[in-house]
């Protein structure tokens, strides 16, 4: 009910936007923020509840254990099949007669454009800002382990997808939960699927939408000066509305093409900055390793670094969350497991490469203030995070780090953030929609309702403060992982059968490269 009132206020403000209202806008932002924090507080508290007697959130442990179990169960599949995954993406094993279908490369690129985004830029800055350089170590480790989780869920996503008579497909955890459990004679698959779908819708509205809108606003405000968040929200919501409701595919297409170039430009600039400070590389890695095991004075010490690293990795690459299984299930392949191999590259590119670049640039450009006497990091006044040069956090910390080397880069970064945010929103609007139609059935009106709700949340996300938004985003996405990982434990033996069969045929030469 409170949400509805808030929405009403937003709409009223939009319609009657006048100078007087604009002056009162910070008050409106504050109201939205407070209402939102109150509404989502209990859910967030439950998801991030610490394990009894520790400060370690149970959900982080849940994901790390899952990634470790999958890594061991599939005997380090992420290393054994890494080069095979690259061959698949290159199309070495693609039948020329299937040309014109969704290729492995396209499925990977689409899934990546949903995950590469603010998690890599803002999320890493939050992790390093709170957990110190040591968080990077745990983030990379979580990324490497997460490759096995992604492999498991994406194989199942393709295996149990729905293929409709008109040639379209729908896939994702809700389908492997219901169909996979039925196939194995296990009860409760349908319940899990419904639960997952609910959390997926919340995740789509949270991390896939509000967090993006929020950070995009912060980035724009950082350049043009502070102004009310709901204005950015309305503009973003309008563009998203035109694409997902109005069917204006041209905007989405342009974004999908520009985003990969932005990603490459981002990594290339990071590499140049690292190269410019080549003498600092050894020191930076020293900080990462030392911080990983001692914390170097950060809040929460080593555990604080570990929690931040694991949390940000999971939020960034979404391994075990189930979203990628929706994106990857569109690929046309006779072997579902090939899509699993391809998908394991995703956490590698997203976390091990791109996130590490962000972290290294922040560390190398010395944005985090070190106490010269102790060599430890100094905390800010609240004691909640490391003090930074200009008091920056989140995306503005990354922006400042890149800006210290190239003064023009914050402008490029602002454009990148807006485009990343936009493409992530488009991807998540699709994931959310798939969960919505799973629950309520397909149909124009039903789909339209979800799309309108999605657009309204863009406005709320842009107007709220970072704290409550990031908490809710994390909580909703991790809630998806709770259900998804639970189902994966039951279904992983299906993946193992597929893996054994595929490996044997690959070895015998039955599966071989096509000549192109």
């Amino acid at each position, binding site marked *: 009910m409170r949400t509805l009132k808030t929405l009403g206020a937003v709409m009223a403000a939009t319609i009657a936007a006048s100078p007087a209202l604009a002056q009162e806008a910070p008050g409106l932002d504050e109201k939205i923020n407070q209402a939102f924090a109150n509404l989502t507080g209990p859910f967030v508290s439950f998801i991030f509840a610490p394990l009894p007697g520790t400060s370690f959130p149970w959900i982080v442990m849940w994901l790390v254990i899952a990634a470790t179990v999958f890594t061991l169960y599939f005997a380090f599949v992420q290393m054994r099949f890494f080069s095979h995954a690259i061959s698949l993406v290159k199309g070495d094993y693609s039948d020329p*007669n299937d040309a014109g*279908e969704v290729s492995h490369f396209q499925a990977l690129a689409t899934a990546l454009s949903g995950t590469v985004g603010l998690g890599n830029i803002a999320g890493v800055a939050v992790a390093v800002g709170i957990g110190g350089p040591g968080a990077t170590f745990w983030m990379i480790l979580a990324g490497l382990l997460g490759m096995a989780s992604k492999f498991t869920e994406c194989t199942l996503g393709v295996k149990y997808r729905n293929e409709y008579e008109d040639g379209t497909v*729908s896939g994702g955890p809700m389908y492997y939960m219901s169909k996979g459990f039925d196939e194995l004679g296990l009860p409760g698959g349908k319940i899990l699927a419904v639960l997952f779908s609910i959390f997926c819708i919340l995740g789509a509205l949270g991390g896939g939408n509000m967090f993006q809108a929020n950070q995009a606003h912060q980035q724009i405000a950082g350049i043009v000066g502070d102004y009310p968040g709901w204005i950015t929200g309305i503009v973003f919501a309008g563009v998203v509305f035109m694409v997902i409701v109005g069917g204006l595919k041209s905007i989405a297409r342009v974004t999908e093409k520009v985003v990969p170039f932005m990603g490459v430009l981002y990594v290339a600039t990071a590499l140049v900055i690292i190269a410019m400070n080549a003498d600092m590389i050894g020191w930076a890695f020293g900080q990462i390793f030392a911080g990983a095991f001692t914390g170097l004075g950060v809040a929460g010490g080593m555990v604080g670094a570990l929690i931040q690293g694991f949390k940000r990795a999971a939020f960034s690459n979404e391994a075990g969350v189930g979203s990628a299984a929706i*994106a990857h299930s569109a690929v*046309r392949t006779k072997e579902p497991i090939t899509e699993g191999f391809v998908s394991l590259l995703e956490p590698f590119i997203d976390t091990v490469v791109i996130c590490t670049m962000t972290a290294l640039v922040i560390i190398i450009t010395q944005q985090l203030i070190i106490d010269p006497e102790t060599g430890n990091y100094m905390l800010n006044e609240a004691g909640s995070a490391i003090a930074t040069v200009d008091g920056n956090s989140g995306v503005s910390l990354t922006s400042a780090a890149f800006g210290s080397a190239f003064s023009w880069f914050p402008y490029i970064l602002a454009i990148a953030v807006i485009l990343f945010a936009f493409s992530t929103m488009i991807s998540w609007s*699709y994931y959310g929609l798939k969960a919505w139609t799973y629950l309520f059935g397909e149909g124009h009106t039903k789909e339209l309702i979800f799309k309108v709700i999605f657009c309204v949340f863009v406005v709320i996300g842009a107007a709220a403060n970072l704290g409550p938004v990031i908490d809710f985003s994390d909580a909703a996405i991790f809630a998806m992982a709770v259900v998804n990982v639970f189902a994966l434990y039951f279904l992983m033996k299906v993946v193992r059968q597929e893996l054994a069969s595929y490996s044997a045929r690959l070895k015998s030469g039955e599966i071989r490269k096509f000549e192109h």
Partner: protein
Amino acid sequence: MTTKIVIGLDGTETGERAIAFAKDLAKLIGTCDLLVAYVIEWSPYTFQTPEENAQRHKRREEEVDLAMSRVVTPAVEALRAAGFEAQGIVRHGDVAETLNAITVENGGSQIVVGRASADGIKKRLFGSSTQYLVMHADVPVTVVN
């Protein structure tokens, strides 16, 4: 042994001239099969939205049906009506590479294409598909002006 000539069409009038030339050639050879090929320009390395991916199979079928019904089938029927042995094929891919692959797979001994009409800048930067085909094909290529 029957000779097989592959005729590459692109849906424009240059294709008509390619067909006319191939017919003359086939008459001169005597026992000659004609394979009418249409390649839908497609790359596996493009970037698409999740929704486009989900609908890709459906779109592909539609694209193939459209190319078949608008371009290939009318050409094949006209050739058969004129007394030639003719078949048709539609495939997605890089135009030059795919035409060559179709020819090699089907035992074609020659490719006949119309001069392609790529637009200015693209042509200057990358060359046209026809140029690429002439340079890299495994069999002789005739370009009809």
